[in-house]
């Protein structure tokens, strides 16, 4: 094989972090890549997998063979995630690739997303469940429109942690000045957004500098390597443990002669902590009861919290079905049919228009909705609001007012990523055409 992996900066110092047996319970960090085409997202993921020894020899051999056949000078690690035929042929990422690795500290789920504006909806798919997003910028080019767009989308989706990776530092002579200029520019842009936690790291994805171990090429950088940050970033308090929200997914009623009169409400805890004895309210009916038991197939549990999937039993017989929500009497979401939301439009065939009718899915509830108004469309570069806009086209974002056929049990998205988000579905094509984040519900 003529091609080689470009050697890591500190090859011998590489942390040995292969996924060992589960010595102690690990937690899970989901992160997504973001940034413009060719800024090095896929290469960075390849490097992270390679340097943590998470790659298998046959995967690597396959990538080396393809690289060699194409006459690449070095093994193109981006091929590790660009798994579709079309992606390899065009040398771009079209859809999200999910990759997995673990270190003794954490298990990671990576969503490597596409940079092309055309595939923004796939980037949004990857970022919607992320705890953290890596925004890559090519040090030679600095921030470009897509870097801003993706940073904005991450803030809109409320990805709790952002890491700006100033990449390709090898091509700017490891210059501190270049790094600082980009870091400052991004920090200034992020200040206009709602970014709770921002970290900046200078890297070379291709050479492995500051990816797993700190680089000797940039002694002026005093922060941690990217992996060090990923392993330690504190995510436990990102979850909302205050507002009890339990969307009922499915009613379990065994038709059995051995288990009789059983009625349990199955679902995944969206937020808050549920305990037997707690006083609860069921929406939209407003009936109250007490939690008799919180159960799993392995038996009752003393409490349930996100992201547990459990079955809740109540002390009283009340009529509850899928789409209802269990909360506390003194802390309930809005029961609302008039919804104000930021909408990211994802359909190339037809724009969102005032007067349009759609299906929506919100938690475990389905409804229909009519678009009553479009307040403005947002220019993502300048964050300017265009109030004269009368439609949202593919990849455009705007503030929309909707009226739904049945009430949604809704929170503001900024308070609750589960009860605050919904998707918009075209009733004719059944395609998911919009992602909506609730700003106000009444």
């Amino acid at each position, binding site marked *: 094989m003529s091609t080689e992996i470009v050697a890591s900066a500190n090859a011998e110092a590489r942390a040995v972090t292969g996924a060992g*047996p*589960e010595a102690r*319970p*690990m*937690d*899970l960090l989901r992160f997504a890549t973001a940034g413009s085409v060719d800024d090095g997202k896929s290469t960075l993921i390849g490097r992270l997998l390679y340097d943590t020894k998470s790659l*298998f*020899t*046959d*995967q690597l051999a*396959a990538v080396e063979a393809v690289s060699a056949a194409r006459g690449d000078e070095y093994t193109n690690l981006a091929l*590790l*995630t660009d*798994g*579709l035929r*079309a992606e390899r042929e065009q040398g771009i990422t*079209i*859809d999200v*690739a*999910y*990759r*997995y690795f*673990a270190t003794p500290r*954490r*298990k990671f*789920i990576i969503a490597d997303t596409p940079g092309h504006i055309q595939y923004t909806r*796939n980037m*949004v*798919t990857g970022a919607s*469940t992320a705890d953290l997003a890596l925004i890559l910028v090519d040090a030679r080019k600095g921030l470009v429109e897509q870097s801003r767009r993706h940073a904005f989308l991450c803030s809109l989706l409320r990805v709790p942690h952002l890491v700006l990776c100033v990449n390709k530092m090898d091509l700017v002579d490891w210059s501190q000045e270049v790094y600082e200029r980009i870091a400052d520019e991004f920090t200034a842009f992020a200040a206009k957004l709602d970014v709770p936690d921002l970290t900046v790291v200078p890297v070379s994805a291709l050479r492995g500098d500051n990816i797993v171990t700190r680089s000797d090429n940039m002694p002026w950088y005093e922060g941690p390597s990217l992996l060090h940050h990923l392993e330690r970033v504190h995510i*436990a308090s990102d979850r909302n*443990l205050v507002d009890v929200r339990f969307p009922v*997914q*499915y009613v379990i*009623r*065994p*038709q*059995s002669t051995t*288990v009789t009169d059983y009625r349990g409400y*199955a679902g*995944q805890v969206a937020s808050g*902590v549920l305990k037997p004895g707690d006083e609860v309210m069921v929406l939209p009916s407003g009936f109250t009861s007490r939690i008799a038991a919180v159960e799993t*197939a392995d038996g009752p*549990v*003393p409490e349930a*919290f996100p992201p*547990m*999937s459990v079955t809740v039993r109540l002390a009283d017989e009340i009529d509850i079905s899928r789409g209802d929500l269990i909360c506390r009497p003194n802390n309930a979401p809005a029961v609302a049919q008039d919804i104000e939301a930021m909408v990211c439009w*994802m359909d190339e065939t037809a724009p969102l228009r005032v007067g349009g009718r759609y*299906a929506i899915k*919100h938690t475990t509830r389905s409804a229909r909705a009519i678009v009553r108004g479009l307040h403005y469309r947002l220019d993502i570069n300048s964050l300017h609001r265009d109030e004269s806009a009368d439609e949202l086209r593919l990849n455009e974002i705007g503030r929309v007012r909707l009226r739904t056929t049945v009430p949604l049990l809704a929170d503001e998205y900024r308070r609750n990523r*589960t009860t605050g*988000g*919904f*998707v918009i*579905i075209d009733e004719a094509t*059944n*395609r*998911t055409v919009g*992602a909506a984040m609730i700003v106000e519900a009444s």
Partner: protein
Amino acid sequence: MTTPAAYQVSHLDALEAESIFVMREVVAEMERPVMLFSGGKDSIVMLRLAQKAFAPANVPFPVMHVDTGHNFPEVLEYRDQRVAELGLQLVVASVPEALASGMVRESGDGMRNRIQTPVLLDAVEKHRFDALFGGARRDEEKARAKERVFSFRDEFGQWDPKNQRPELWSLYNGRHHPGESIRVFPLSNWTELDVWHYIARERIPLPSIYYAHEREVIERDGMFYAVNEFFRPRAGEERFKAQVRYRTVGDASCTAAVRSDADTVEKVIEEVAATRITERGATRGDDRVSEAAMEDRKREGYF
């Protein structure tokens, strides 16, 4: 596993909760779901998750086995035992029957991987299944790494990788027109190692061929194939006895074993954690056909 004091769950608990959520969504929203059950470890774990998702009620859907006719006897036996134990309805989509009726023809190389797709699609149509649970994991293969949890298939069972539905948060869109269907992958985010940790934790019995045993094999392309009625050595291939186990269980004519002394679940976990070859790379003749073998099969409706 959980430590309520800190309100944290382990990654296995998080994966389990996600899979259960996915299964309940399907049963709540789709009309005729079915679970693909081959007797392989992933489908065994998936079935365990289904039991958990609906307990104390029974698993509320049938299971289907796409039977290529090239089976490991231990696996068939396991399948039947499990089905009986759980009182499940078993649908068998049979490749030998489809061959006999002329619906499909044996391919030149004798591999039945490709011809099982029309047999699967025929059974789906006949039973009007609109949701099919599959045990595929994204870590298995690069085309699978790209697939949604709810993966839309048109009326020909085809996957269009360039035009997948956006899938935000945990809001899965299973809407479809008659004749179309959704493939659902509850184990999308599990790795091979997660599956084994779960098998250990839940003490799930497996067909014996997953653990080290002695078997008569031949070596081909660096893989160890068991000599049996579906697999004949070629001239010059020497038979010998070896300690092996199966990392995946598929069609017995193209699934290879790996050398192994791992005869307990703990030893398998150690082995899997240390291995440097992917499970399909180590054991599947069918993926070696081309760079995009899996993607091409999936487009046609394969799992």
